[in-house]
């Protein structure tokens, strides 16, 4: 979808719940996510790359929906309008020695 990123999204204004931890694996707060969005990180994929939110041990299974709703609210669009993120192998974390013994890894 064409997106001119020059458009102002309103700027960051502090909120009382900014200290709330959203991504527990990587310890990312709501305030960090909101600030990144106002800094121009406008997709779920970019937020993952910039903050590692949803990129820890659980790979976003816990916080994925929360991050999505924060992004949707900051951009003023419905959550369903946001492009989904990609899940990648392995489905569950796997020790290097286990993977080394396996010949295969399940892939998306």
């Amino acid at each position, binding site marked *: *979808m064409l997106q001119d990123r020059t458009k102002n999204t309103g700027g960051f204004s502090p909120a009382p719940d900014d200290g709330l931890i959203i991504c527990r694996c990587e310890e990312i707060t709501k305030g960090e996510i909101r600030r990144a969005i106002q800094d*121009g990180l406008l997709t779920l994929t*970019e937020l993952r790359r910039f903050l590692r939110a949803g990129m820890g041990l659980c790979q976003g299974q816990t916080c994925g929906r929360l991050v999505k709703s924060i992004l949707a609210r900051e951009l003023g669009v419905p959550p369903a309008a946001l492009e989904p993120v990609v899940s990648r192998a*392995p489905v569950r974390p796997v020790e290097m020695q286990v993977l*080394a013994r396996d*010949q295969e*890894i399940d892939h998306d």
Partner: protein
Amino acid sequence: MTEHNADVVIIGGGIMGCAAAYYIAKRGASVLVLEKEDSIGSGGSSRNGGGVRQSGRDPRELPIAMHGIQHIWPTLAAELDVDVEYCQKGNLRLGKTAAQLKILESLTQKAVSCGLDVRMISGDEAREINPYLSREVMGASWCPTDGHANPLLATLGFYRKARQLGARFISGETVTAIEKIRGRACRVRGAQGVYAGGTIILAAGLGSRPLAWTVGLDVPLQPLLLETLVTEAVDTMFPQMLGTAAADFYGHQSVHHGSFVFGVTSGYEPYARPGLPRSSAGAAAAACRSILTYFPALEHIKIIRSWAGWIDDCADHVPVLSFTDEVPGLILACGFSGHGFGISPAVGRLLSEMALDGRPALDLSALRQSRFAAK
């Protein structure tokens, strides 16, 4: 269709496009970046292994790598106001057999003759630098000024800062042609608009080749698939960048975070299925088997994510950074051949100089596109 204008129009929002946009905007010129994907940095720039190395680089590319490491990387985090996780604690390239040590020696000799501080060390010296190395390691080449950084943060860091300085970014716009007026490249046609620029920079990775064709130029690029693994974050073990003479893996532990990032080779890089880059079935397992022979202590660390990415391998494995006689107004910046990340800040600055001053501060004549002209 609306017409947009900028002093410089950049095709491709990877790290090269974002870094060039930053240095151009910093000098007060107007710049517009066009990226076909919805997210900035969706090509190799967010998929690479983060190596910031001089050792192993071709003599034609080495001066750019050295320039970046001496003058840009050390202060990049402060400049971009983003922790790019740069760590300059050296590169160990490991050998386990006499034949592998020979490979390392010849690489080392070449680099030394180019003025790089790199030398051969014994297995025990290597284990002093990195106590986690197994007894299988017989020797290594050691370049103390090499290092690593986080490519995702660096790419988006350049984007974020460029945007703050007024650079304009349009994502979701696929460029279909470069257009000339009176012989000069001055316009870019996209699926949804037309964009006029005093100078056009073509930095679209593999996408650069078909776009170069639209103005009658060719750059011999071939897609190769590389793969990467990342582990959970663990306590700090060692800061060096790693490589091997066998080229069975490379990698590092991210500073301030603790995850390991490993580059993986399948042996079938040129034969990968075209289209979206996909991790191959056996490469991750094979890489883990190799890694554990060098670093047995990593056995219980968990892999949490794997991915693959295309590289734009140039016929002679060094990039094209070039004006051309045929198409004035156009700058080619592609063919980074799987080692563009380390040089990207320096390339961004050189591109800004080419676009705004008409010439780069370093001599790039060895990287001209005309080197591929029929002899």
